[in-house]
């Protein structure tokens, strides 16, 4: 399947006169001679959406965010944020954006509360520290301890609170769920949704599709520095077909297995008395069952699985992404 063609699709894309939160034009970042971290990226994120920025580790997501935040300078192309140039109008951007950066650190000797007071002073906002703590689920006792004794999850919550200082117009979250337990992961989603409900934009990067599918209006998939798809999640699903897997247990696998001839069947794998059939097209499911009977086998059991978003993801990126809890292992 030609996934590249979907990149230009207009599935779920708002019309062009909407205010733009982030726009990159021909954005390229090269490290040294050999590493092309971001390759000619054109991306537009509109105000008010929750935008998922997906791709395997090393795809260039963090580098793109680094350019947007002026942590690094692009080799070619440009980026604008809320209409400001990322390189020349950095202050204007940073006054309006909150970021949970990738690979961030905190001050071990400072308490959580001091961190927030510092961020509030630097952003000249009037947030109440306790409200911020409340939003990210850090209790006051923890906030009065120094960060050196925090767990990864507590640090992540504190960093998230720092990102929320000043109620930013655009919230950029780079792998916000790493280090968080399931409650924390749900919290990140609630914060994102809550932020969008107030008319703000959320740019949410992750290498785990299931963490963004529930909240994102649109997603972009990045692989090896290139944009391979940009669409709504439903749009992506449609682009790849229904994508079900039928698992059939039979008394004996027929010698002449003709399943592959059925329109809509994309793959057949036989493992002992179990036959796994990948189907792109819904009506083909019944055809598969009929055909296998015609071929002379008795069906003992049938299960049908709809494709997971992880399968979808790997179809676009060509890699098998880590699932849920495994994600921690490779950080």
């Amino acid at each position, binding site marked *: 399947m030609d996934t590249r063609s979907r990149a230009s699709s207009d599935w779920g894309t708002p019309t062009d006169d909407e205010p733009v939160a982030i726009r990159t034009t021909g954005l390229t970042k090269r490290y040294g001679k050999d590493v092309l971290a971001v390759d000619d990226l054109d991306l537009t994120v509109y105000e008010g959406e929750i935008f998922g920025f997906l791709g395997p580790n090393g795809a260039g997501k963090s580098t793109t965010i680094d350019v947007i*935040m002026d942590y690094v*300078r692009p080799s070619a192309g440009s980026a604008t944020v809320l209409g400001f140039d990322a390189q020349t109008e950095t*202050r204007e951007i940073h006054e309006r954006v909150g970021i949970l950066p990738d690979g961030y650190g*905190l001050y071990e*000797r400072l308490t959580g509360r001091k961190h927030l007071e510092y961020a509030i002073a630097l952003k000249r*906002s009037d947030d109440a520290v306790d409200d911020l703590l409340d939003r990210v689920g850090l209790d006051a006792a923890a906030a009065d301890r120094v960060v050196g004794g925090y767990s990864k999850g507590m640090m992540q919550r504190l960093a998230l609170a720092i990102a929320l200082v000043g109620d930013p117009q655009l919230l950029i979250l780079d792998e916000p769920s790493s280090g968080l337990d399931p409650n924390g992961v749900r919290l990140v989603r609630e914060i994102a949704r809550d932020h969008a409900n107030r008319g703000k934009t959320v740019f949410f990067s992750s290498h785990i599709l299931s963490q963004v599918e529930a909240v994102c209006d649109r997603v972009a998939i990045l692989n090896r520095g290139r944009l391979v798809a940009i669409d709504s999640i439903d749009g992506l699903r449609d682009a790849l077909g229904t994508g079900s897997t039928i698992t059939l247990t039979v008394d004996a696998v027929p010698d002449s297995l003709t399943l592959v001839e059925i329109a809509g069947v994309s793959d057949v794998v036989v493992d002992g008395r179990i036959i796994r059939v990948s189907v792109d097209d819904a009506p083909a499911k019944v055809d598969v069952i009929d055909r296998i009977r015609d071929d002379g086998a008795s069906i003992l059991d049938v299960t049908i699985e709809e494709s997971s978003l992880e399968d979808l993801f790997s179809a676009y990126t060509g890699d098998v992404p880590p699932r849920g809890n495994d994600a921690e292992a490779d950080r």
Partner: protein
Amino acid sequence: MTRAPLWLTIARKEFADALRSRMIWGIVVIIAVMTSLSASISLLVPDVEGGAEMAIGGASQFAGLLVPIMALIAAYLAIAGELESGSLKVILGLPPSRGEVLFGKFLGRSGVVAIGLALGFVVSGVVTAVLYGGLPVGAFVGTTLLTVLLGVSFVGIGIGISAVTATRSRAMTLAITAYLGLTLLWDLAPTVVHLLVTGEMPGGVVPAWLLLIQGVSPTGAYNALVQRLLLGSGTAVEARIGGSAPSYLDPAVFLGILFAWAVVPLLVGYSKFRQADLS
């Protein structure tokens, strides 16, 4: 909500960190103890002609060696440490620019070093006054101020080093190199130049330009200024060069050199840091 400039907010935080980590008290104690000891040496050694000026001079000799290393330690990780830990990404994700971060850190850590040195000198001033039955206030205050300026110069050098390096270990290598080069090796420079120019070792009376070379390093400029302050230009300069001092040995020149050592490394550091990729 106060609307203090961002660099001032950063400087205040740096200062508060130094109080919290007790770094400032370390500076006070080390300076107080070492300068008090060296101020009292002339009393402990018999047959040494000693007055309170000599005592201050002894303290300044020690400070000339000690202050650079303390100021470098206070400054060399300012940027590099935060870059390595990732906290720089959090700060630079907020409104402050790189220049404001650099300047705020320079200011905050200069304040730490300056106040630590001044407090340490106050202690040794009291010790000197008790031991010698009096204190030449002008000479003492002048030496204290010059020592503070020396400290600030090395904070500038340390912050500059920190801004051009990406890792802690590299920053440390450069800081050690700067210390050895500017404080210890530089003492050899005038001798080597003299040997190259005249073919012999410097004798009792030296050419005037030798004193300038000696005073080009921050520690050299500091020593030249302190000597001038304590001994007067007759003993400190004219007796050594056997004639009247040329204008390039004016104290203002050495003051300028000390200031330049604070500012130039900072500007060089900034020009590199401004362009750097922080990942």
